[in-house]
């Protein structure tokens, strides 16, 4: 346990910190304040965030974010968001021209329901040495790109300073960069965990990392600093939170299968977690005296989806995000209102309880 607490990447001791370490977080921040962008989890619904960023570019009002953070699909989106509009084409392709065959192969492994070697290959294709060099250059300018994974052994979130990794350069840095992205998207149980070689107290071992969303659906700052009881002020000129999911309850008659019950339960828990985190982020921005901006998938978006990572669905979602990004009001200044409880049925239904 002591070894794990101080473990670092051999040869790259400065590229990560525990997400609950306020001192390390403050130390990693940019030298000058600017707008911050937090990108949430959301799987294929990351197409919404990609579209919104592209729409902001098209409207000529996309800020140059001084800090970009990403969790899960937000981690895959974050390098594109960080590098700006010159990568918009690649970002659009990444979120509109894939199918589930590019993400996973059906068939359980000892650690997961499916195998993600296709996603590993996709990440290697998308995140090139040239992109790494561009990220390193922005890091040297003082901008910061953070990606979050979950160290499952430690039950703690880890923030990876992706710009610092890129600045190291070389094959080891490129491999680590891609490995962190894969880890941040590796939903435990569904996707295999990602083992990362580290060294602590002179001992070499591998940490087990999984989806950053396990520790929170997006990342702004260590929880101790975002807490309602904290007086911490964000050293930013504005906070933008891009939620790659809808926040309203989405009725779907649940089949009486383990997978179906898990799917609906996790989906609901993610929405609840996201809502609570948004409230915290809003209060932090208010306390810091900076504008709060949030965008999420509009409640009226209703394109059909034929299975996971349906490119038609993702294109429709990208377009919805693009239209919103290009509109006069791409962001709301407060978290979306909680939906009202549905009206009670007018007459008693005999078909109560489980399942239809």
């Amino acid at each position, binding site marked *: 346990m002591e070894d794990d607490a101080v473990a670092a990447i051999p040869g790259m001791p400065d590229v990560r910190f525990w997400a609950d370490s306020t001192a390390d977080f403050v130390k990693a921040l940019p030298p000058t304040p600017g707008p911050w962008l937090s990108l949430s989890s959301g799987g294929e619904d990351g197409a919404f965030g990609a579209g919104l960023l592209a729409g902001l570019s098209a409207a000529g009002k996309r800020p140059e974010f001084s800090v970009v953070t990403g969790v899960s699909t937000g981690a895959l989106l974050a390098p594109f968001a960080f590098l700006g509009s010159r990568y918009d084409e690649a970002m659009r392709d990444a979120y509109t021209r894939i199918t589930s065959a590019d993400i996973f192969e059906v068939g359980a492994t000892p650690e997961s329901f*499916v195998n993600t070697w296709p996603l590993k290959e996709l990440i290697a294709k998308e995140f090139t040495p040239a992109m790494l060099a561009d990220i390193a250059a922005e890091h040297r300018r003082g901008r910061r790109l953070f990606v979050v994974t979950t160290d499952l052994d430690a039950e703690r979130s880890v923030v990876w300073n992706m710009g610092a990794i890129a600045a190291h350069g070389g094959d080891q840095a490129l491999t680590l960069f891609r490995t962190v992205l894969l880890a941040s998207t590796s939903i435990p*149980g*569904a996707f295999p965990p990602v083992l990362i070689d580290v060294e602590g107290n002179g001992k070499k071992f591998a940490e087990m990392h999984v989806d950053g969303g396990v520790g929170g659906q997006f990342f702004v700052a260590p929880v101790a600093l975002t807490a309602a009881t904290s007086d911490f002020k964000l050293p930013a000129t504005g906070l933008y939170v891009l939620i790659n*999911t809808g926040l309203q309850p989405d009725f779907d008659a649940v089949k009486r299968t383990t997978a179906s019950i898990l799917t609906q339960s*996790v989906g609901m828990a993610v929405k609840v977690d996201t809502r609570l985190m948004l409230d915290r982020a809003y209060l932090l921005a208010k306390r810091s005296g900076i504008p709060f901006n949030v965008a999420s998938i509009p409640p009226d978006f209703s394109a059909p989806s*034929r299975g996971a990572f*349906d490119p038609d669905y993702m294109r429709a979602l990208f377009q919805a995000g693009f239209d919103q990004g290009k509109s006069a009001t791409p962001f709301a200044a407060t978290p979306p209102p909680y939906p009202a409880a549905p009206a009670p049925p007018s007459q008693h239904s005999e078909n109560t309880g489980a399942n239809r």
Partner: protein
Amino acid sequence: MRRILGASLAIAVAALIAAASIMPSDAAVPRRRAPLTSAYDGVWSVSVVTLRGDCDRGYRYPLRILGGRVVKADADPAYAVAGAVGRGGVIGVTVAGGGQSATGYGRLSRNLGRGVWRTSNGRCSGQWTAERRE
């Protein structure tokens, strides 16, 4: 109408459900008696794309070819596979699960393959590509 939820876990699990729903219980080995070949033996990954019908848009499955016969490469009980490879890489495979089945035909080369497929009830059809993994 179905919306895939944002949670990645939800997506992956939903994918499994969807996969199982177009597959089967009684896979049938193609009845052709052409000589089999071991030239393509190994583990292959097959990407299936739906071009017609309302089946899921795409999936990827691992398959193993052993002595010219096509079998599953994993232990997932949700689906069954049967098929054979003949001379020149001609291949026929039936995948079954969830009370339905789909049959694909095509041709393998040394490390790649492609062909077409359709469900037994004619509801969906499309193309497949394959790459040798081992």
